[in-house]
């Protein structure tokens, strides 16, 4: 019962913060509302029994991705007013579209019964059950290759982001590490063999 009450409270907060994301005037406020939305969904995921993913959402999304967002938002000097032209003109259309989508989903969920029977196992977990251990077991056995593909995707994303944003200003003094490492002693010093000079 308490789980249901918590679900509705945090669900309402999630919807409110999503509304904040799409209506806030300042992009920094939008990013902060998005952080609130992620935190609320982490709580909801905890209630739905996805402990590992809830904590991953907080650590990875709130801790890393949203900080990246805030950096980018604050780096840009955006003219907010110009970007908000046509906001009120398109707001009714957006609201109508949202209502239509919600109505369609409600029809599918309620009127046409999905015909799914809840698993009895989801109600009562055995003693010592660990969501993280089970998920890890599944990831490293059945989903091993997708897991490795995910790692490669992250690597590609790192390389792409760095190569896109790296720039060389003219006149900047930089070390060329490759040339520094490739240097050998005989390129730098020259040993000259010569006879000793006589006393003057």
């Amino acid at each position, binding site marked *: 019962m308490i789980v249901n009450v918590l679900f509705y409270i945090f669900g309402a907060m999630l919807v409110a913060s999503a509304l904040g994301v799409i209506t806030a005037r300042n992009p920094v406020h939008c990013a902060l509302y998005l952080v609130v939305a992620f935190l609320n969904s982490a709580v909801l995921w905890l209630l739905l029994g996805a402990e590992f993913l809830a904590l*991953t959402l907080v650590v990875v999304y709130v801790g890393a991705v949203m900080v990246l967002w805030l950096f980018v938002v604050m780096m840009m000097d955006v003219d907010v007013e110009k970007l908000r032209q046509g906001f009120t003109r398109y707001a009714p259309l957006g609201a109508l579209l949202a209502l239509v989508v*919600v109505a369609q989903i409600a029809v599918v969920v309620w009127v046409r019964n999905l015909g799914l029977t809840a698993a*009895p196992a989801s109600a009562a977990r055995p003693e010592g059950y660990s969501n993280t251990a089970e998920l890890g077991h599944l990831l490293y056995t059945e989903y091993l290759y997708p897991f490795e593909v*995910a790692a490669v995707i992250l690597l590609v994303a790192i390389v*792409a*982001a*760095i190569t896109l944003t790296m720039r060389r200003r003219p006149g900047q003094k930089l070390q060329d590490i490759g040339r520094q490492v490739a240097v050998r002693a005989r390129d730098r010093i020259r040993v000259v063999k010569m006879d000793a000079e006589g006393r003057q």
Partner: protein
Amino acid sequence: MIPLSHVLLLSGILFSLSVAGIFINRKNVLLLLMCIELMLLAVNFNFIAFAHHLGDLSGQVFVFFILTVAAAESAIGLAILVVLFRQRRSINVEDLDAMRG
């Protein structure tokens, strides 16, 4: 136990809010990307709801992969946005008319 239909409806509301956000903020690339993040969150909700309801952890594995891809997407998207802002001094969608489709 939380009813499946309520979770699905919550994720539907979240998804439709982000669709509406794409409509009303259609000039600001930054907000468009944020709305896409919200959409992915709504989709993740569906996966987790079904994983909980059916007692099958595969749904949570899919959420794991979606989170990975979403993080990569936002990193690359923001990098493109930074380069764009450096070139044009603007993130207005209407200024991006170099290709004139």
